[in-house]
């Protein structure tokens, strides 16, 4: 048993922390206020290798592992949860399935660009009436000569407004449920794909979340990702990695709330002394720190298992469930510690509170995670 990070993992953490402190933290509040996509930061992350952490070097990535990925994710999320979401989608939901199921041509075409941060990808699974029950999706794809023709509407697609490549799940077979689904790589310039409504959200305001419309969208035959009818397998394969990434994002948000709270509690004076001297505040801080550490350890374990090539569905779900609920709880405590100042936009805890909520929802709601965990124990 060894809780020490390896030297290269510490260096990744250090690099991500320095970059986040210098380049992201100073502008995070502004990005949120202006709902602005951090294009320059994303390019910077790409130059560091953080937009394709697990993409091998031969495809322009960093060739590192899940542990490196989540260490960097925590640092980025601590500075800006929106940027972390953009990074998470690109790494876990776009590069990862291309790497696992893509043909050599697909890997060569997409991975170097996505890993460089010059372009981002997005993931189109959810539909207006197929959320947690993803296998009920309605988008269709039929073969017409050397093209696939896709029709349907995708919902809540992170990065869609900026994306170059869309991983789209559509029904190719008559069979209902999971078995009739295939995955496709659709480019923004393919005819028939367009970005619809850009959602007005509670949090993650610097990243876009949009509707994606497919209207007789024609895609080359070779852009099928994985085998025909095996799309759901592709989708499932991204789940564990995606959940570990979101868990790390949640740990980052929670840590930001803790760090801001500690700083404020030492400085804010009431009744003639810093509020840090009041036990009510001390207990909140102690509980925040403890839960955050537990969340981080769960997340690291899940990432480590995945790096060992072991099954980690249960552990990824536990990490995602606990970390996201910790983020929400810690942000809530943070706002409370700041009192009235926590409720206004001059201080970032208000943003953490809004940003934390989504981690309990996307990539499997807390309820879905509990279902997965229970099923593992009861079946």
């Amino acid at each position, binding site marked *: 048993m060894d809780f020490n990070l390896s030297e290269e993992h510490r260096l990744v953490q250090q690099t991500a922390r320095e970059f986040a402190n210098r380049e992201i933290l100073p502008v995070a*509040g502004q990005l949120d206020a202006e709902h602005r996509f951090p294009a320059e930061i994303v390019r910077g992350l790409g130059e560091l290798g953080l937009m394709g952490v697990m993409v091998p070097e031969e495809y322009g990535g960093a060739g590192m592992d899940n542990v490196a990925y989540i260490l960097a994710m925590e640092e980025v999320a601590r500075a800006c949860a929106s940027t972390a979401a953009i990074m998470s989608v690109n790494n876990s939901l776009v590069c990862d399935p291309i790497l696992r199921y893509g043909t050599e041509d697909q890997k060569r075409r997409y991975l170097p660009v996505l890993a460089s941060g010059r372009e981002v990808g997005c993931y189109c699974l959810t539909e207006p009436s197929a959320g947690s029950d993803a296998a009920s999706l309605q988008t269709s794809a039929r073969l017409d000569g050397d093209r696939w023709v896709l029709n349907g509407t995708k919902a809540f697609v992170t990065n869609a407004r900026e994306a170059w490549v869309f991983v789209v799940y559509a029904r190719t077979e008559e069979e209902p449920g999971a078995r009739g689904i295939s995955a496709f790589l659709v480019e923004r310039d393919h005819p028939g794909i367009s970005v619809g409504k850009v959602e007005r959200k509670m949090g993650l305001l610097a990243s876009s979340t949009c509707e994606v419309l497919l209207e007789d969208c024609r895609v080359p035959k070779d852009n099928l990702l994985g085998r025909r009818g095996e799309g759901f397998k592709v989708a499932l394969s991204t789940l564990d990695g995606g959940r570990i990434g979101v868990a790390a994002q949640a740990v980052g948000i929670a840590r930001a709330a803790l760090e801001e709270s500690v*700083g*404020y509690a030492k*400085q*804010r*004076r009431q009744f003639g002394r810093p509020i840090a001297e009041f036990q009510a505040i001390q207990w909140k801080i102690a509980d925040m720190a403890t839960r955050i550490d537990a969340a981080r350890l769960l997340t690291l374990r899940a990432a480590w298992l995945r790096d060992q090539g072991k099954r980690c569905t249960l552990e990824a779900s536990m990490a995602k469930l606990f970390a996201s609920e910790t983020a929400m709880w810690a942000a809530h405590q943070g706002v409370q510690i700041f009192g009235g*100042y926590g409720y206004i936009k*001059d*201080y970032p805890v208000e943003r953490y509170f809004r940003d934390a909520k989504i981690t309990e929802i996307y990539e499997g709601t807390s309820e879905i995670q509990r279902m997965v965990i229970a099923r593992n124990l009861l079946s």
Partner: protein
Amino acid sequence: MPNDVWIVADHAGGSPRRITLELLGKGRELANARGGRLVALVLGHGLVNPAQAFGEYGADTVLAVDHPHLQAYTTDGYTEALTALVRERTPWLVVVPSTAWGRDCAPRLAVRAGAGIVTDVEALWLEEGRLLARRPMYTRKVMATAEYRQEGPHVAVVLPKVFPPAARQEGRTAQVEWVQVSVSPPRSRVVETRALQRERVSLTEAEVIVSGGRGLRGPENFSLLDALAAELGAAVGSSRPPVDSGWVPHDYEIGQTGKTVSPTVYIAVGISGAPQHLAGMSGSKYIVAINKDPNAPIFQLASLGVVGDLFQIVPKLTEEVRRLRAQG
């Protein structure tokens, strides 16, 4: 002489600069404790009799070295001249001012003369025959006491403004000894020295910040702060209300939604001290607050809080600073 204290003078054409007076004051005390002489070393070219100035500030002897290669400071020239003198006359302690040139040559002198060296010295004293020096470490988060472990010579590089300047004793004189030292031509050459242009000092780097708040009442009154800042070589900042009111641009703002600063001195003028502002400046070493409201929260943080009318106090303060600076 093994008990002598030497001060390597920072001087302009043979007359001592302020830091030299500070070193002479401390040097006098140590020379007395040790029972040695206080010696001022004056290196240069075309020196006019430096005896009187140094004598009046406590030196017993002036060692004057006049050489064409010592016209301007060079690493080689100073190291060679100083080493020759130290080797020949074996002082107990050589005190070097922590200036750009002092920090440049002192380590080389220490190596060549076989001396121990302590830099950034803020206190220097004898304890049971041992020489001790206190200095900041870890970017001033720790104060450490260093001990010179062998017999002299010792080298101490002393920070400016930590010791009070020696008091002037009119008419006191020092004995001057003109010393011949051979100095080789230096290997590097100073091409030019440009005066540093005083552009607007940046907030995050400034040693002193003068900052204004709502109490200034309007944009025109920031000129009061500009005048004071010019005298102090300070940067001008503001809290949020002047920015929100458009009196000053956003890059002036210090606080939660602006810059975080930690100067040596932060002078808060007409700033009440909302938590958003305190978040950006509470790391300042000293905080001076001028405000007419004695209950303003800024006073809880102030090292010196002055209750009064800023419109009367600030111009007087500018005058007073100008007067003190003119005195040198």
